[in-house]
């Protein structure tokens, strides 16, 4: 497809500004705490769709296991919040551990006494995990569906692990920290607009960072290797490192989303590692438009919005509808809704261009050949 208005960088940034400004207005005009909390959760879904768009749409790495980073991030944050409510002297051990027969705090829980350290771990552990796992896979030139299946396998293994390690994770019941996250006196109450703002700020930050990444030279080379990774090698770029870093960057965004999810819901469980949930992230990005960071976010909003609209009774048929729309989109609208916008804008701007060249006389030389 020829370049059109849709590809204008300045216009793209402008659209981002308008989009985020609209999101920023919501808490100013709405004071329903419950609804605001719900909308903040959409921000989390937006981040996840963004991370998929970066990895899959942009980097060409289909990732069906983004729940790995999301879940690890969420658990890290929940562990931090849990330890904030414990006391080193009077109650050093979370109650669920006592119920599970532990009489001392397990060593892996120790670092979470410190809030800063705990949050850092919530982000670093998944990112490093992605760096190692991605590094091993991409170095061995595992790609495409094989890589996607590996991510699925790891995700299921983690889900099982977190269920099985009952004394450390409280198994299927998960962890529900009794108090809101408190960062040095700054309390992120899930039912106050503060939490919305924090999620909003992190969504903006990750989107801008991801957008800049795609516009950097790194981004250009990733685009090239998405197109033909074999060819890139002969230009001197170590393809495995580029792939690993895109994958890890998307993992970091998903880990941030996990952290937000934990303080918004004050509850994490192995459901965060659910395979179906990770696949729905891919569906959001596909429906919105995986080639566009912003449209992927919009996809998450639309699909999750529609899901909450149809309600829980129809959840089973909803999944069928979702799967069906996914197939339709992949078959007939591979660019998703964003692709549709690109085509429509293309029609508008092409019309304008021909008018201009008519008035100016000599325009660009006609494209020859096919």
């Amino acid at each position, binding site marked *: *497809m*020829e*370049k059109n208005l849709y590809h204008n960088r300045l216009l793209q940034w402008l659209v981002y500004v308008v989009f985020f400004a609209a999101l920023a207005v919501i808490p100013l005009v709405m004071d329903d705490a419950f609804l605001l909390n719900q909308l903040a959760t959409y921000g989390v879904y937006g981040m996840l769709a963004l991370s998929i768009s970066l990895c899959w749409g942009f980097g060409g790495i289909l990732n069906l296991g983004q729940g790995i980073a999301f879940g690890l991030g969420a658990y890290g944050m929940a562990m931090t919040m849990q330890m904030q409510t414990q006391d080193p002297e009077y109650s050093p051990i979370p109650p669920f551990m006592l119920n599970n027969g532990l009489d001392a705090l397990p060593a892996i829980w120790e670092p979470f006494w410190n809030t800063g350290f705990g949050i850092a771990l919530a982000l670093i552990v998944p990112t490093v995990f992605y760096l190692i796992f991605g590094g091993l896979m991409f170095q061995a030139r595992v790609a495409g569906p094989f890589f996607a299946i590996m991510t699925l396998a790891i995700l299921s293994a983690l889900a099982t692990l977190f269920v099985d390690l009952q004394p450390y994770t409280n198994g299927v019941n998960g962890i529900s920290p009794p108090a809101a996250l408190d960062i040095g006196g700054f309390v992120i109450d899930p039912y106050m607009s503060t939490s919305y703002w924090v999620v909003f700020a992190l969504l903006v930050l990750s989107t801008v960072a991801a957008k800049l*990444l795609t*516009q*950097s*030279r*790194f981004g*250009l*080379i990733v*685009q*090239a290797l*998405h*197109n*033909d990774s*074999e*060819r*890139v*090698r*002969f*230009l*001197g*770029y*170590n*393809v495995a*490192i*580029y792939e690993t*870093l895109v994958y890890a960057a998307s993992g970091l965004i998903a880990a941030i989303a996990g952290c937000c999810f934990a303080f918004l819901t004050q509850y994490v469980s192995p459901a965060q590692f659910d395979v179906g949930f990770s696949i729905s992230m891919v569906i959001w990005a596909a429906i919105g438009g995986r080639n566009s960071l912003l449209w992927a976010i919009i996809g998450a909003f639309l699909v999750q919005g529609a899901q909450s609209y149809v309600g829980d009774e129809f959840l089973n048929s909803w999944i069928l509808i979702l799967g069906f729309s996914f197939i339709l989109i992949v078959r007939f609208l591979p660019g998703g809704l964003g692709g549709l916008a690109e085509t429509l804008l293309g029609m508008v701007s092409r019309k304008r261009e021909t008018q201009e060249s008519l008035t100016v006389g000599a325009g660009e*030389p006609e*494209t*020859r*050949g*096919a």
Partner: protein
Amino acid sequence: MVGVLEIKDLHKSFDATKVINGFSLAVTEMTLQCLVGPNGAGKTTTIDLISGRQKPTSGEITFREENITGLSEHEIARRGIGRKFQVPAVFRELTVRQNLEVAYNRETSAVRNMFSFKPDGCAKRLEEIAADVGLTERLGIKAGTLSHGETQWLEIGMVLMQDPAMLLLDEPVAGMTEHEMDKTVEILNRLKKTNTIIVVEHDMGFVRRIADVVTVMHMGSLLAQGSIADIEKDERVREVYLGTEDDEESVH
């Protein structure tokens, strides 16, 4: 005489088929060496072995006195060897400009490239090379929409953007018009003053206009080597190669 590139007793088999059979070659700095030979002689495989696309079964390849046998593609590219593929390989989804920008590989570190947007000197070099290969007017369009000849040009431009010490060009003028070929001859004759070049080519007319040294391959080994005049006189070469080439030309 020590060459920049030295290939010693190279062997390559795919399963049971021996494709390269004890091939040796020394390429002198700042010369243009043409690698010719009938279909299936192993020319492309030789280029693949030098550039790291294939690993030799045995033998040694040294570049600037460093053993590069078995290094990976990007490591070899970073040492200053740029290649063009027989079937032109460009990034079809990217614009012509982006293709050339990707090829400007002064900085290959992924982390440093995350913080780089417009590398020094890239824009200027890009303008020069685009003009050189006649793609200035086409910079904004997708590479996938170029004609075959233009795609060849683009890939040559990409190799030039790398500014490699050594260029490996696999059939650079295949599918080019007479006029485009003249231009390639002009560029190659200019380039060989500063770079070492290996050109794989079938068209003896083209070889005559550019080659300093001609190497003839046959069934994976060296058949003859020398100036174009020597080669054209060589009885064995006429037998395996030039005879068939004449037939081919009469078909065209």
